């Protein structure tokens, strides 16, 4: 039953201590997926929706149909029940959902039913989620134009930052000269010069791209210089004894070695990019998610503004899930 022929014949095969035993993780049972605290709160929200609404009778804009909110609830619930989690992740996901549903419950009962905050800028959940249905064309257009800028800007910034940062980190003379300068520049928050960049660039597209690029570039550039300095010495020595030249060394050893760290930083980078972009959009754009929120606020349509804010949150979450998937596929190791 031996895997190795040659080595094990002479008794030099793998010893018992060398072999690695894997423990498979337990899956969550269907009973546990359905009977739990979050699902109890889920039912409470539905039950609350049947209570009489003071919001509908007291507020000018009235209360929209529960359908849109209901669809959102069902989508969240479907993802929760059908997820493919192991036991240890299950508890955390449970807790997250408890928070989310509690928030929805308080929102539904406090605003839609009891109208405890009778102000125009505290919209009911029914109305907020109805915006997604009613105004989906404008929201998707904003999403499209923002997403193009983010994906384009972040990738461009990362490619430049990683290649240049690795090169600078690798050559001591360059590092000593460039690092202090980069350190000084990277501490300036990009939000400070956003309005200035919007002003001087010919088109808003160029301006946003520059803003997104700058918001990511300096930090990642500095990170890459640091990462290069901290690559495991023995890995570098192993490559050095193969007589590798500088360029192959950077592209075949240093950058692959730092890949997990680069991907780990991607969620933070995305959040930063989104923050600066939406800020830029609020200053001078004619489309985009930030623009949507700004216009809604200008016209005192707080329901739309809240919907826009929630939508941005959902987009970021989906992007992060997407990054996690990429990481699982391409980074199968951690140092």
């Amino acid at each position: 039953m031996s895997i190795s022929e040659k080595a094990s014949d002479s008794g030099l095969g793998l010893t018992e201590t060398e072999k690695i035993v894997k423990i498979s993780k337990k899956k969550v049972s269907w009973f546990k997926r359905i009977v739990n605290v979050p699902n109890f709160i889920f039912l409470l929200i539905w039950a609350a929706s049947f209570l009489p609404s003071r919001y509908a009778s007291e507020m000018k804009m009235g209360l929209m149909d529960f359908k849109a909110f209901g669809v959102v609830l069902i989508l969240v619930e479907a993802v929760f029940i059908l997820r493919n989690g192991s036991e240890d992740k299950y508890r955390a996901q449970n807790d997250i959902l408890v928070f989310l549903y509690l928030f929805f419950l308080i929102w539904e009962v406090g605003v839609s039913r009891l109208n405890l905050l009778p102000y125009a800028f505290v919209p009911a959940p029914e109305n907020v989620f109805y915006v997604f249905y009613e105004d989906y064309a404008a929201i998707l257009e904003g999403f499209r134009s923002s997403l193009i800028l983010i994906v384009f800007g972040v990738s461009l910034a990362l490619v430049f930052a990683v290649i240049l940062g690795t090169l600078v980190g690798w050559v001591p003379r360059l590092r000593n000269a460039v690092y202090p300068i980069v350190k000084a520049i990277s501490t300036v928050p990009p939000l400070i010069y956003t309005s200035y960049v919007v002003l001087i660039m010919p088109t808003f597209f160029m301006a946003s791209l520059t803003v997104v690029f700058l918001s990511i570039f300096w930090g990642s550039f500095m990170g890459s210089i640091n990462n290069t300095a901290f690559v495991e010495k023995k890995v570098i020595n192993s490559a050095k004894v193969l007589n590798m030249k500088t360029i192959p060394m950077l592209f075949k050893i240093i950058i692959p070695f730092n890949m997990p760290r680069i991907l780990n930083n991607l969620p933070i980078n995305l959040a930063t990019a989104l923050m600066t972009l939406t800020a830029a959009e609020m200053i001078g754009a004619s489309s985009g998610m930030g623009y949507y929120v700004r216009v809604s606020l200008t016209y005192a349509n707080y329901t739309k503004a809240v919907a826009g804010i929630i939508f941005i949150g959902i987009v970021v979450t989906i992007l992060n899930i997407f990054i996690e998937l990429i990481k699982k596929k391409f980074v199968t190791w951690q140092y």
Partner: protein
Amino acid sequence: MSETVIKIEDLSLAYETEKTRFEALKNINLEIKKGEFVCLIGPSGCGKSTLLGVLEGLLEPTSGKVYIEDREVHGPGSERAVVFQNYSLFPWMTAKKNVSFALRESKRGIQKISKKDANKIAEEYLEKVGLAGYENKQPGELSGGMQQRVAIARALACNPEILLMDEPFGAIDAKTREVLQQLLLKLWAEDENKKTIVFVTHDLEEAIFLADRIVFMVPKGIHSVIDVNLERPRDKEKLMLSDKYRTLRSRLVKLFNNEEDNSEFIGGAGI
């Protein structure tokens, strides 16, 4: 069999920082013959890893010269391959890729090896070290012992004249270490064109079991060179019972103890 492959002449090496200067090696002279298995041994901080670093081409001597087959050494070369202590594999590559990548890179500019051929050679060497079936695992999925097997396969696949080993089994459990020592001797012995091995260790028994000659080092230099006249193939259990082995061992233990009394701690064994 008796031609000299490695010749070290008046080698000195000092580490310099802004304020201090630390002399790690001073006036070292050593000749190593083709096909010889030499162990460098000595207390920590004696410079054995530094000396190996010079042979690897990773450290430049302050003065003196190192010749390999009459050519002066500057930087690494494809006639040498190195096995480090641990964590030296490329963690994002599979075992097979680690071996084939090293093979192709080390022969770059000398010999063109296609990816297919490199993979075939890699598989062959992984099988030789007992890792058939583990070709597509990454280092993180392998135990320490398995990782060192890959490191040995990686070094041997490049088919170097000289194999430099820097405490390769230092971080491995005793049982596995013995198996790997035997495996190394077996692979070394069955090679037609016998490789010259320079092996750094701080384990006396390991040195006696493996070496033809033991170079005993003290801080900055070589204290003595001891011939190990034990027949090969060696069997550890029989060896332990032989008088020759015991005399040799007690001699080395004495050397170790004398040295450790008057040598202070100077630093780690890393380069």
